[in-house]
């Protein structure tokens, strides 16, 4: 079973060429890279995090495929958000298993993010859905935009 489909790159699509180049490089590297490493341009061993500042909250999105709710630990101390978790390897034993390719990883990870001072540590919620963890930290009431009505006499 071959894992990569060879697609010719066209000069018109620069990003496709980059993808192609990356795939080729990965194939070259395959022989001497550690089993848990992913592509050379990908992040390894920690989940990717997005922090988005919206009008009245900070939204943190973390890609955590395969991690269940009980293996995740999210803490917020003042404005320091800490996400800890463990990604468990499927327990099957190594007997008779032959890996052709291993890009997925397992193990412990920890990410610590320092949110801006305007975050309110009291108003936080977390939600896990389809392998994406979403943490919403509301902004302090005094920094939220307020609508001021102007009275015209």
């Amino acid at each position, binding site marked *: 079973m071959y894992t990569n489909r060879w697609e010719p790159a066209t000069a*018109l699509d620069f990003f496709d060429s980059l993808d192609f180049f990356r795939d080729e490089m990965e194939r070259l590297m395959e022989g001497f890279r550690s089993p848990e490493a992913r592509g050379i341009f990908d992040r390894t061993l920690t989940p990717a*995090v997005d922090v*988005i*500042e919206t*009008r009245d909250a900070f939204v943190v*999105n973390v*890609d955590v*495929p395969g991690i269940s709710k009980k293996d995740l630990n999210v803490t917020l101390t003042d404005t320091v958000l800490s996400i800890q978790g463990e990604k468990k390897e499927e327990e099957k034993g190594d007997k008779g298993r032959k890996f052709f390719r291993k890009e997925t990883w397992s193990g412990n990870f920890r990410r610590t993010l320092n949110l801006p001072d305007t975050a309110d540590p009291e108003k936080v919620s977390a939600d896990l859905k389809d*392998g994406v963890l979403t943490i919403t930290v509301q902004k302090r009431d005094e920094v939220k935009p307020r609508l001021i009505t102007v009275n015209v006499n």
Partner: protein
Amino acid sequence: MEATKSLTAPKRRFVNPACSICEDEGKVTVTVELPGVRKEDLEIKIEGNELVILGKRSDSAPEGTYLLRERRTGDFRKTFTLDDSIDHEGVDGKLSDGILTLTLKVKEAALPRKIAIR
């Protein structure tokens, strides 16, 4: 022919998801990480001898400014070429917590046979 196809067809950018392939006693298990993909947004098809996995990300980012951006946005696509030893009918898929597990069967004829020595 390939080249003309890619020049004329509308090109979309896809994210190449991380995957693992493991063979175990007549079964091939393919594990693909698809965070943010719901079951109804996942399309798995076999075209000829190609297995195509297409996953649409349904989680949309809220309106705002990015303070940190590490996640790759875009839909996932992964293509595998199946060889003759794989049974195209017996493919089983399971999606949970953003991980797709596909189980493919190896054809009986391709399995190693034990030969008894008299």
